[in-house]
């Protein structure tokens, strides 16, 4: 079934709130009493998608767990900008692991809570794409395989942002990073096999896997709350644009996330026990150029020495996603 959008009432569930909806139909973010898990004063860049995505996700988890939540955080921007010792923005019990072991730390906390009989306390682990798809991958796979009672959230900004935008295994083809410079016949990050973590998570057969973006708040909240109602290993892969690393305007963060989804480059879906159960359809399909053009990390694909063949290859990736996940409704096509 998936997230059931409310299609009318002026803006339906597209906007964060809607005075025309009954209170139980409203979002966590619209609530004046939301927990504001990451409070003001954090040092994230202007328009940071990760700061926004983390508040969206953790506020929803807090709402669903009635405030009984412990959050584990791998090293990365989210940890560094929120908690420069001795200050912290976090308004939830929060623990910093190291870069590569957040899943293992979360597993331990979940086990401890179980031993103490605190079945009401739930555990969330979070990390960047580097911490998740690269260095933390072994711990994460173990956590999945043991089906530990943890919701793991990956904030995917497609590179190691905290240390200065180095490539990760989640960096997309052609993107410029500090370690994949736009030089040579195929500038930027090479077209590789990719490393699709949501699908790898699904291959573990865990109860719940979902992808989401900061552009679809209601879908994201639905997925976090759904995951929090389940037990065992759960994984949410959240797409969070990074204005600094991607070379985008700070006000464009949500638009860029929306274009990633609408172009088909970032498929938004959910899966249970390894099977896709719903997809968020494309509403107004756009070509990949519309997504790539506003980002300086793809600037070398356009301009005076353009690489249309690389743009076509990226378009092919989008088309493959659209076919594979059935992202287009007939009417939107």
């Amino acid at each position, binding site marked *: 079934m998936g997230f059931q959008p409310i299609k009318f009432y002026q803006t339906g569930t597209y906007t964060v709130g809607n005075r025309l909806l009954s209170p139980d139909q409203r979002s966590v973010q619209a609530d004046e009493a939301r927990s504001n898990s990451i409070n*003001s*004063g954090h*040092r994230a860049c202007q*328009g940071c998608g990760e700061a926004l995505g983390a508040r969206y996700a953790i506020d929803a988890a807090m709402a669903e767990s009635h405030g009984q939540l412990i959050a584990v955080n791998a090293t990365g921007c989210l940890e560094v900008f929120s908690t420069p010792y001795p*200050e912290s*923005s976090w308004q939830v019990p929060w623990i910093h692991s190291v870069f590569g072991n957040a899943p293992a730390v979360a597993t331990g906390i979940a086990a401890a809570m179980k031993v103490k009989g605190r079945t009401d306390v739930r555990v969330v682990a979070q990390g960047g794409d580097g911490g998740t798809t690269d260095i933390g991958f072994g711990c994460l796979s173990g956590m999945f395989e043991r089906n530990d009672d943890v919701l793991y959230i990956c904030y995917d900004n497609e590179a190691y942002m905290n240390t200065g935008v180095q490539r990760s295994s989640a960096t997309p083809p052609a993107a410029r990073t500090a370690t994949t410079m736009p030089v040579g016949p195929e500038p930027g990050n090479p077209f590789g096999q990719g490393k699709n973590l949501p699908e790898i998570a699904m291959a573990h057969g865990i109860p719940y896997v979902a992808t989401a973006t900061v552009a679809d708040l209601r879908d994201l909240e639905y997925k976090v709350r759904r995951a929090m109602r389940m037990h065992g290993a759960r994984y949410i892969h959240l797409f969070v644009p990074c204005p600094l690393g991607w070379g985008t305007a700070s006000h464009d963060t949500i638009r860029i996330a929306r274009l990633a989804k609408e172009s088909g480059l970032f498929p938004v879906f959910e899966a249970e026990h390894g099977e896709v159960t719903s997809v968020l359809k494309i509403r107004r399909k756009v070509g990949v150029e519309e997504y790539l053009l506003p980002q300086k990390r793809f600037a070398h694909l356009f301009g005076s020495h353009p690489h249309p063949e690389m743009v076509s290859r990226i378009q092919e990736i989008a088309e493959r996603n659209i076919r594979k996940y059935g992202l287009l409704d007939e009417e939107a096509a």
Partner: protein
Amino acid sequence: MIKPFAITLKPGTSLSNLTGTWRTERPVYLDRLPPCNNACPAGENIQGWLYHAESGDYEQAWRVLVEENPFPAVMGRVCYHPCEDQCNRGKLDSAVGINSVERFLGDEAIRRGWKFSKSADASGKKVLIVGAGPSGLSAAYHLARMGHEVEIQEAGPMAGGMMRFGIPKYRLPRDVLDAEVRRILDLGVRLKLNSRVDDIVQGMQGFDAAFLAVGAHIARRAFIPAGDAAHVVDAVSLLQSMEGEEKPMLGRRVVVYGGGNTAIDVARTARRLGATDAIIVYRRTRERMPAHDFEIEEALQEGVMIRWLSAIRQADEGQLTVEKMVLDEKGMPVPTGEFETMEADTLVLALGQDVDLALLEGVPNLEIRNGTVQVSGNMMTGYPGLFAGGDMVPSERNVTVAAGHGKKAARHIDAYLRGVSYEPHAKHELADFGKLNTWYYSDADKTVRPMLDIIRRQTSFDEVQGGLDETNALFEARRCMSCGNCFECDNCYGVCPDNAVIKLGPGRRFKFNYDYCKGCGLCAAECPCGAIKMVPEEI
């Protein structure tokens, strides 16, 4: 014990870090002018009343509406709704059916007997209004609510002016008009019927100011040689006689000469009176016809025929002589010298209307140009205390414009009576389409109003266009995008990565916490309706 440094400091909150100092631009909330409001000749706050209709509070919607215009049920039927032409939603799917929601509110008010709210304290001033048409009644309404004593003197036997004697019943049922007029009179406005003012300067004695709104109801004639037995009438008297007991006899073949909305009204009326043929003769082409396209279309549907590029040269008993015309490069009709005859039992001339200026003779300092009374920006004529509006001053002539004149004149008359001058608010900047983020609005096509079936349209004076019911009026209201005006969608409150937006609660909107706002601009970019603007910080 010597503690490692890392555990010597007490934990603190990031609130001590005022990230607002990073900002180079700041977001500010503002109200921009919705294009519908900007286009409304009566100055209605359309977005404002739709806002209340959206939540189903129709009475509040109606109250906001009538702040500007006392005739929603009339407007919802006869207004040409330039608001809808400008509606931003037209660029997305189709314009919001503003006019149909207005009618729904107007009808709802009549059905539920809503009354105008109490007026201001009595001012002790008396205002004379000449003419009980839309602008006179509108002025009376506003002046009465401002606390002035108002007397309307109307030459005709009933109030309504062109709303009654110009617009046929099938477009405006009379019970609707009567209800909205009565509600104005209920404010204590005195209406004297059958009382023609022959000399305004004398008539004004005993009053502190006067508003002239006698309209333009003298039919313009064209010189057409006519035989003694030819039956030639003018559109104004024909439509007027429709209000009497005895319906005019027009015969089976009726020819209407002219190309405006009145010509269309007459032809459609003729069909309903039993004419088998109702033919409009017009000198130019459809593209150049001043009548509104939808009215031409409705007339054609009812079997009205139109003969383009033709001028009537001679009228005889049962027959007309018509000359074929062509358009020159400027689009003006030129005769060809080719003549034809056509059968006609009656010829109706619908060639425009002039103002009856008789009552103005000898008024000092009055300027009359092209048959209309000149007024300055405050609607006052050259004669102090004498204001004028509606069809008798230079402007577009329709009911909505007239109602707008009435309001505007009332505000200036009120100021004049108080010895001050009325300064309208500076207009907000326009909320054009580019200011919106339309991603957030649900896809929803316009609701189409039901139309009376064609047979009944040809044979009866029943209202042609139906209204919306509650559910679809609500749907239609909710298609409004609230251009330029916060509708509390919570987007700014949600999308701020820095929690720097404070939600003030229902109806109270939001405010920025500039201590922490970094000026990223996400709120402005993701505000659906363009109610946030980024302005540079002074550095």
